[in-house]
């Protein structure tokens, strides 16, 4: 039995529900061992308007079942991205979304305008886990008004599908999710990394040069499943689940919890073919439980 794995995320039709997460797949040009047939979409490494050098090493620390990273959004800036990658993306048989980042709502808007209509760019994912310099460095994603402002700034300047990637370190993710939906998001990605710290007992300083980093990997999965579920309960646009997916069963937890699709990040570091294995494992689960398509999978999504 072949299972129909296609999903629609807003206007984007994806051949499968397993996507490569931003910052863990470069610009889609590395990872030679992946069976790309299984790739639903790629979200490229987050970029700013201008090139950024990133943070000094150490940039990563392993933690129990997880890792902290502080890459500092190293990247070529939007012009470099368009110049070096977009034309390649236009040739691929799966969509590439660009993860966009800014220090002001206006910067997000400018990025959206610049990327609008560029062949190869299939959509935008707004990373709102960025410090808002106009609001004294608080993350955009921590405040429903700031999150909505960024979403609106992007929405106004592009016809591309707009996804908003939520930050997990909030009191009530449902409030932020609804604010982004109301501001015009086509879908939500839940969630980005949690802020963490690790101390080196030799230097008695943080191990990361940036002091703190974002925690990813299986350690956060139960938290991510809960937050993605809460977001899915709060809105009627699709939610893409992410956080600690290593295998198909992990992805299925997010799908059952109400997500339309999933993204795989850290797992690709460990197993370059992780995305294909997750994809095939989901298909096998569906087949063995008698479902002809992913759409038939029953969801656990009580609405209060």
């Amino acid at each position, binding site marked *: 039995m072949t299972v129909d794995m296609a999903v629609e995320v807003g206007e984007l039709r994806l051949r499968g529900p397993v996507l490569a997460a931003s910052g863990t797949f470069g610009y889609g040009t590395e*990872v030679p*061992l992946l069976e790309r047939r299984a790739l639903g979409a790629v979200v490229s490494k987050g970029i700013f308007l201008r090139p950024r050098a990133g943070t000094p090493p*150490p940039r990563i620390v392993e933690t129990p079942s997880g890792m902290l990273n502080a890459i500092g959004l190293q990247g070529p800036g939007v012009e470099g991205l368009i110049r070096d990658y977009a034309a390649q993306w236009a040739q691929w048989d799966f969509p590439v979304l660009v993860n966009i980042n800014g220090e002001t709502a206006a910067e997000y808007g400018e990025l959206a305008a610049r990327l609008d209509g560029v062949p190869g760019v299939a959509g935008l994912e707004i990373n709102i886990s960025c410090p808002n310099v106009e609001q004294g460095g608080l993350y955009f994603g921590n405040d429903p008004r700031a999150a909505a402002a960024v979403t609106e700034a992007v929405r106004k300047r592009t016809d591309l599908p707009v996804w908003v990637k939520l930050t997990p370190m909030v009191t009530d993710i449902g409030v932020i999710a609804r604010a982004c939906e109301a501001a015009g998001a086509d879908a939500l990605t839940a969630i980005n990394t949690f802020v963490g710290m690790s101390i080196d007992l030799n230097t008695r300083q943080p191990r990361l040069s940036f002091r703190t980093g974002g925690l990813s990997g299986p350690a956060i999965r139960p938290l991510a499943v809960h937050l993605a579920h809460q977001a899915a309960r709060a809105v009627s646009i699709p939610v893409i689940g992410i956080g600690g997916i290593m295998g198909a069963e992990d992805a299925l937890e997010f799908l059952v919890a109400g997500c339309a699709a999933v993204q795989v990040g850290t797992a690709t570091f460990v197993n370059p073919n992780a995305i294909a294995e997750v994809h095939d494992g989901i298909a096998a689960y569906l087949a063995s439980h008698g479902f002809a398509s992913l759409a038939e999978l029953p969801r656990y999504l009580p609405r209060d």
Partner: protein
Amino acid sequence: MFLVDAPLVARREVARGMFVLSLDAPQIAQSVRAGQFVNLGWSPGPLLRRPFSVYRTEGDRIEVILKAVGAGTAQLLAMTASDTISCLGPLGHAFDLVAGPRSVALVSGGLGVAPMPLAAREARAAGMSVTWVHGSRTVDELCSEADGDEVIWATDDGSRGFAGTAVSAVPETDVVLACGPNRMLAAVAMRWPDAQVAVETYMGCGTGVCLGCAVPLARGGYDRACKEGPVYRAADIDWSVLPAHLPYAISA
């Protein structure tokens, strides 16, 4: 690049606490070049893979050399001959050993000896004479396996060979290759700006997608040790920003 479930087939001790593991990984054994590495994973084990230079190859086998410096290396050394280790590789850029120069010095401190046996083989194939310079704190920690037309030992405490660092024991040669604690490599860079050095960083992926293995460049910005490196021209690195307290340093 290959992803191979490699059976552990042999193990030998080459210095106090320093072991060579042999893994059956044919595709990697046949394609790896000196300075390249493999990223090893196993289960149950840590989340991330651990990078190791390929020490030697023999037929279908690759060898890696290591000491227990943390939980991961301790687990690798606790494995038995029936165990399987997942090998991703070969990864990274190799030493540049094209024919032309007539002599090469392979300079290593402690576990920095790791890429040198393959380098010796390739240098000799390219027609160079090999001077092997290997140092450690004390005689017990010297890797007993050496492979050079000339072999020079160095120990900090003078318990064998030259009393001092490996770097200070290096004679004149056309080319210098070095591997060891980043502090040692910084000293190499001062003396031989054109030396080829293999650096150590923490790595997330080993395949170029995470940007975790940032190597600060003298011209500004960062490179990826796993992709553009781990072999660099010594003077191209900003040594003041590259962390020095990594496992090579612990063990050298």
